[in-house]
């Protein structure tokens, strides 16, 4: 044990690379304790130095402990808040929805699948051009539903996005893609 102490006491301040030791010795009072222990390495001086170092080390631990706590707690807090926001909107709406409406909403949810199928077919039925029809039936159900909502039911991109619970950008992109596909097929089909 003594050898470790002499190792540190013998070393020069400039030679110490350890960041904790350096920050410890950067404090004037600690440095004085260090010099005193270096000159007179008796039990008392060394135990004073030890105590000061322990305190210094604890403070470093405390800083990292508290900052991590702040980080983690804030992160959880953000999550909790965003969840609450979601629930509150729901609760707020529910307060205003009468039993009757609630039932309708449930019904709507249940029949959404069926409805979407009807919506798709209504668009397909309206198409008379063979080329376009062939292209349309090759699209996915989702794509069909989106263009049907847009062109047949005349919903805006934002409204469709709300209905399908996706972003408006995604809807716009999908529609653009489909139109490009249709245009391509008409050009090649026409030739």
């Amino acid at each position, binding site marked *: *044990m003594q050898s*470790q102490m002499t190792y540190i006491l013998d070393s020069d301040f400039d030679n110490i690379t350890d960041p904790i*030791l350096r920050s410890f010795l950067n404090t004037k009072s600690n440095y004085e304790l260090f010099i005193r222990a270096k000159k007179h390495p008796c039990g008392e001086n060394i135990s004073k130095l030890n105590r000061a170092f322990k305190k210094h080390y604890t403070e470093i631990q405390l800083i990292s*402990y508290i900052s991590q706590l*702040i980080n983690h*707690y804030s992160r959880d807090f953000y999550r909790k808040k965003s969840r609450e926001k979601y629930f509150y909107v729901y609760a707020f709406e529910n307060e205003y929805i009468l039993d009757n409406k609630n039932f309708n909403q449930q019904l709507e949810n249940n029949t959404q699948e069926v409805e979407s199928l009807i919506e798709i077919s209504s668009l397909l039925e309206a198409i008379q051009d063979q080329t376009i029809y062939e292209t349309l039936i090759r699209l996915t159900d989702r794509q069909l539903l989106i263009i049907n909502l847009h062109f047949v039911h005349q919903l805006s991109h934002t409204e469709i996005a709300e209905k399908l619970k996706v972003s408006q950008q995604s809807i716009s992109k999908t529609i653009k893609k489909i139109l490009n596909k249709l245009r391509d097929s008409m050009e090649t089909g026409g030739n």
Partner: protein
Amino acid sequence: MIIMTNLGLYELTYKIKKDKEKDDAIMEIISLFEPKIKTKTKTLDVHTGEDLKQELTIEITKALKRFDLERAPNLTEYMKNKQHKEKEGDSCE
């Protein structure tokens, strides 16, 4: 108004652990960490930000009560661990 005692984190934590002038001590710690807390609350609205700060105050108090002030090594132990680690590092290479 917080009266700054200019005590270190060690003494402040000690006060909290011993329930001695606990409220002042925790307020001082919070004010020391104010810049960090501000970065966390600035994205929130004023009320929610205040809520977060309040909750952080409570959480930090609880955490500091749990904190072990005796856990840190003293200089002798620290040097011993350091040398031990260096030796281990050597043997690995």
